[in-house]
């Protein structure tokens, strides 16, 4: 077993949450590190099937619609169903939301319920406040259960906002099970492609903190409204 220069190791470890300067036994990990990894990996795998509860949605002030997926397990193997909304969901969105806002923001569980609980409460009001301060109208927010990113194509089609933004839970990692991404597109609709999104990922207390992320998302939305485009063509 090797000993490291303690001070250097401490310093390097302090600069990143990555699992570095672990030392070794032979070419393998030491017991504590090996078991910590396995503990964290199982926790992340377990987090995938968790659900966003009623209380979280009530606290966030969001009404709920569901995609065509039956449950989380089906959502894993049927991304096609996770992009589609039934007639009832479409009707509910139409009746509860103001049409054609400048920006429509909604929340999806994606692969992490924990991400919604951890980040949406800070993200939503911060984005709304700074957009409205600039005179940009913001649509009625809501929550989509068993949601995939490409629900944005349908939401864009239903509500006709100029910019559509979905805040969605990322698949859980070992560092955090509660990380969120924002997928944002100008004129979102059925014919758009993946390259038309601008994405901000790693929104979490371990990555880009929600308040900081809200500022970036606001800037992206403003740029889209000004340049009337999104994706790689957008100049930021």
């Amino acid at each position, binding site marked *: 077993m*090797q000993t*490291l*220069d303690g001070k*250097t*190791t401490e310093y*390097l*470890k302090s*600069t*990143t*949450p*990555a*699992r*570095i*300067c*672990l*030392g*070794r036994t*032979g*070419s*393998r*990990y030491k017991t504590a*590190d090996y078991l910590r*990894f*396995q503990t*964290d*990996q199982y926790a*992340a*795998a377990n*987090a*995938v099937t968790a659900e966003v509860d009623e209380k979280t949605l009530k606290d966030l002030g969001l009404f709920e619609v569901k995609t065509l997926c039956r449950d989380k397990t089906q959502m*894993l*193997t*049927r*991304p*096609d169903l996770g992009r589609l909304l039934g007639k009832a969901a479409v009707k509910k969105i139409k009746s509860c939301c103001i049409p054609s806002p400048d920006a429509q923001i909604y929340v999806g569980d994606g*692969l992490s319920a924990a991400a919604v609980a951890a980040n949406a409460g800070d993200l939503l009001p911060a984005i709304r406040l700074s957009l409205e301060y600039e005179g940009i109208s913001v649509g009625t927010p809501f929550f989509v259960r068993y949601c995939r990113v490409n629900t944005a194509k349908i939401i864009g089609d239903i509500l006709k906002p100029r910019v559509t933004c979905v805040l969605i839970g*990322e*698949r*859980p*990692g*070992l*560092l955090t099970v509660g*990380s969120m991404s924002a997928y944002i597109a100008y004129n979102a609709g059925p014919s758009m*492609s*993946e*390259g038309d999104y601008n994405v901000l*990922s*790693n929104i979490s207390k*371990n*990555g*880009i903190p929600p308040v900081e992320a809200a500022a970036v998302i606001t800037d992206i939305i403003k740029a889209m409204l000004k340049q009337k485009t999104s*994706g*790689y063509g957008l100049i*930021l």
Partner: protein
Amino acid sequence: MLLSHTVYGQTFRFSSVKEVLAKANEYKSGDVLARVAAADNRERMAAKLTLAELTVADIRENPVVPYETDEVTRIIQDGLDDAEYRRLRGLTIGELRDKILSDETSGIDLLKMSRGMTSEVIAAVAKLMGNLDLMIASKKIEVTARCNTVIGGNGVFASRLQPNHPTDDIKGILSSLLDGLSYAVGDAVLGVNPAIDSVESTTAVLNLLQDVKTRYAVPTQICVLSHISTQMKALKAGAPTDLFFQSIAGSEKALGSFAASCDMLGEADDLIRKSRTANRLDNTGNYMYFETGQGSELSSDFHHGADQQTMESRCYGLARRYKPFLVNTVVGFIGPEYLYDGRQVIRAAHEDVFCGKMHGLPMGIDCCYTNHMSADQNDIDNLIVLAAAAGASYVMGVPQSDDIMLMYQSTGYHDIAAVRELLGLKPIEPFSAWAENLGILENGRLGKNAGNAAIFKL
């Protein structure tokens, strides 16, 4: 051309070569999702038996995406060596499999022959091979490619050092980088996936990588894996880089969903060669880096009704046009809707390494999984050994296999050291000599300074 076969007392009929190719595939959740998979193993076997009797010409003349509408198909078809194709055209896919595995056929023979095979032909023969068949054939084929150093060759097992950070923090990236170098990881490339796809961030990380490469005299390559247009802008503004990276796909439209095109890849290759000339460096080597992975075409809905393994092989047909330095499948990254569990990931990995090497590519592999798949690190421990045994040229080195930015698990610094120890493999020369000189390696094994990042003075 007979598109039917009787097996188990039942006759199965297929309507196209594309359908035979799809149904002959081993079971993958992505083919089920795309509704192109065989209904059951009986139909799967009928498709395999049908495929075994189709000829190389049958497959070549029926590309899975039409020539007229798809640039990737045109690149694959137009790039074919006619003389080699004429020698092969009458062989059945079953005969081709036997020829590939025969002692009479060397790796050099395979590289020559494969110039006459379309990506669909290479994909087809893989469908008639078991995992060990694929490994034996892959191992035969030695491919080398040259940038600052030469990757590939027998006895060499290289690694990409992947020191990602959730916010591209320069100090954080540096720490993971030094830790990785202290395990003799990073001989293929020091390559960072940026969290922020901007010229500014790409340039900052490239400057860091260049600084580390120069300061510690590391004989390797550097690359930041932002979008190719971002990297080109950074290079034009004076940022250093050794390789241009892009994710690619097996159809023109699927490539377009990455906001990339064949023209753009060609432009990038020209640009980096010109830039090397301007810096008085040799420009006759290999300077592109591509990543692929089964399922990306279906993900963007541009799979054209073909199965994911055939579409993946077409990525390699596209890649070979640009003579890349690095190509790797990120095999378990995409999720359970395409590859459900460890077993499907391992199967796909063997197919990808074989198809890549058959295309003459210096094929590496990101042995990986995500937390929403039915797989764990033990699957990846198995896969990295299998990949090395099959002659994959490099794998990823991530701190304890956990990527804190991309949120998936790959292979760790320790894992690369363990596989080199297990199979008696070494890093690329002169990187290996560099590591020996610093006491990181001693006679090819981890040495007294291995794992001690403090040997690199900050």
